[in-house]
């Protein structure tokens, strides 16, 4: 697109010397792909959101425009509110508290350990991150299994079904475990950028660990903390892998928004309704992003 703009502004002398026609030819395939797989589905979702389009039945063949009906339905639907509340809990518990705190703690404590220990710990944490969701989900189902699960064997609580008894706690711990690697890596890099001489100056003045963190470390990594929180909040908000563990159940007890959308749109077949919630979710994502970016900007100025 940049090439196009350049050639439009100065057709004879664009930077690459291609000329308008050839520049357009180079850009077109990419634009077509973006259009087909990003722009069109987004617009199509927008359109579906104002129809009563269904997966099956009459409305599948001949959808009717229903205006904002889907949106008002969603906002008054206790199921939707439940999903929204669970999603916020999921983000708060597994991303903001779980991954950030655990990731930082690991990064902080890995500064002063022998290199081999550091490598082993970081590899294990990374492994949880890079394994495919389906494999990880299988491992966790086995881990939490009612009869022969590892956790029950360790705790001696055979017969307790964690996914039924504590579905939200299960997926929060699961997601914390799964996503901590990112925070750990980001904080490791950030902590490396804290000048040792500043920490040592604080130590010489008699600052304890907490004061060193508050006065030296945190001011240096504040930007990283915000960036990290923004990214993992968004990822967690949109994360679908809890579905692989609980499928939103039992009785909607762990039905976060992405799972709720999937259940509404595909399981119940209400594509129009699902599209409307998708758009609401997108708006919430934007809100989170704007909030963090503003915070970041305030800190920098």
């Amino acid at each position, binding site marked *: 697109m940049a090439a196009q703009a350049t050639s439009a502004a100065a057709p004879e002398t664009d930077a690459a010397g291609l000329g308008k026609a050839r520049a357009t030819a180079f850009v077109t395939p990419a634009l077509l792909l973006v259009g087909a797989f990003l722009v069109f589905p987004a617009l199509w979702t927008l359109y579906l959101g104002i129809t009563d389009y269904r997966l099956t039945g009459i409305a599948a063949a001949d959808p009717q425009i229903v205006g904002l009906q889907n949106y008002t339905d969603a906002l008054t639907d206790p199921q939707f509110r439940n999903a929204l509340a669970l999603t916020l809990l999921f983000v708060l518990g597994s991303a903001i508290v779980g991954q950030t705190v655990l990731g930082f703690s690991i990064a902080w404590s890995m500064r002063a350990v022998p290199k081999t220990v550091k490598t082993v710990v970081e590899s294990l944490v990374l492994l949880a991150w890079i394994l495919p969701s389906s494999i990880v989900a299988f491992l966790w189902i086995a881990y939490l299994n009612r009869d022969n699960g590892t956790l029950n064997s360790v705790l001696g609580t055979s017969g307790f079904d964690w996914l039924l008894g504590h579905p939200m706690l299960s997926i929060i711990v699961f997601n914390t475990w799964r996503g901590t690697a990112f925070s750990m890596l980001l904080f490791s890099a950030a902590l490396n950028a804290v000048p040792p*001489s500043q920490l*040592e*100056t604080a*130590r*010489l003045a*008699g600052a304890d660990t907490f004061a060193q963190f508050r006065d*030296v470390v945190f*001011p240096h990594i504040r930007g990283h903390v915000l960036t990290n929180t923004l990214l993992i909040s968004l990822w967690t908000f949109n994360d679908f892998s809890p579905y692989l563990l609980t499928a939103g159940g039992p009785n909607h007890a762990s039905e976060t928004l992405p799972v709720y959308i999937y259940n509404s749109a595909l399981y119940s077949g209400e594509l129009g309704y699902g599209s409307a919630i998708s758009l609401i979710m997108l708006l919430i994502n934007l809100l989170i992003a704007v909030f963090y970016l503003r915070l970041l900007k305030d800190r920098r100025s």
Partner: protein
Amino acid sequence: MASIEMRGLTKAYAGGVVAVNSLDLTIADGEFFALLGPSGCGKTTLLRTIAGLEQATEGSLLLNGRDVTTAPPGKRDVAMVFQDYALFPHMNVNENIAYPLRIQKVPSAERRAKAEETGAGLGLSELMERRPGQLSGGQQQRVALARAIAYRPQVFLFDEPLSNLDARLRLEARTFLKRLQKDLGVTTVFVTHDQAEALAMADRMAVMESGHIRQIGTPSEVFHRPVNVFVANFIGSTPMNLIPARVGPAGESLVVASTSLPVPTSAVGQLAEDEDVLLGSRPEYTDVSCSEGPGALRGTVAVLENLGATALVSVETGDLSVQAVVPEGEEPAIGAEAWVLPQRQRALVYRVTDGLLVSRAPDESAGAGAAPDAGSATEVASA
């Protein structure tokens, strides 16, 4: 105010590297002491061990008579100024200076006043509200100093305090630091790799090499009577000439090539015939003449370097190059024949076998330099 005493202090790292090797050193109360040496000699490790940022693996360290070998850095009452100044970028000058006071829970108003006062003393009054990023290198250095001064520690430790300043500012800062230290009277240890800096600023200095102290003494002692070849090479803006020679008959002359030179005053009566030695002579203490004289080495002028008020002449004699400093206006022409003659009173002799200074009376080490406290000079034999 405190003295610093090290007894058999050793710092070995896990990998087997011994950065500081069984060191005995006493720094007197109020002294301005320089640790000088090439990079990797252990001088910074020693400073950090005094600070408590490194743990000594053996030996003990006493500050003002109190054993602090295992005390954490915050309990030693020392302040350190780092090479990069280590100012906190998110705090303004006042907050930076007051930081140690804040950690010591001094009330806010009191520490602000204290920071103002200390800052004013260092000419920082106009800058108190600025952030470190808005200051020049010299100003940042003064803020770092003010932070160290404000809480009145017993000892100052400076790690290469001047090396981040440009050449001119470095000279100013040198004078400034020396005066400041004298005014405050706080025992100060500073680390430098720049011999000129150590000579100019220190009351006493230690020259270090691979974890050992090679010589301790006043700058004058170290400059005039380096105890071994390493120190001789390291000290001096222009390196000392070390001319291989053989002791002549009855130990009464030094033979270089086929020329016979008189034995320097400092080594008279100490040499045995046929011994291999190095004749050490600083370029500043080497004369150049255009006419032949007794005991002078003949050669040709190869290079002339202008040093401002003086010039450095390199005379090639055989395979040897001997350098001499001559006053401006007296430089010989390049290619001309010249005779170089080490000044007999100032020249030194080192044994080739152990690299040590040949000295008439080892205890009388203040011979060439005018050192009032000659007894404090310690010569440490190299292994």
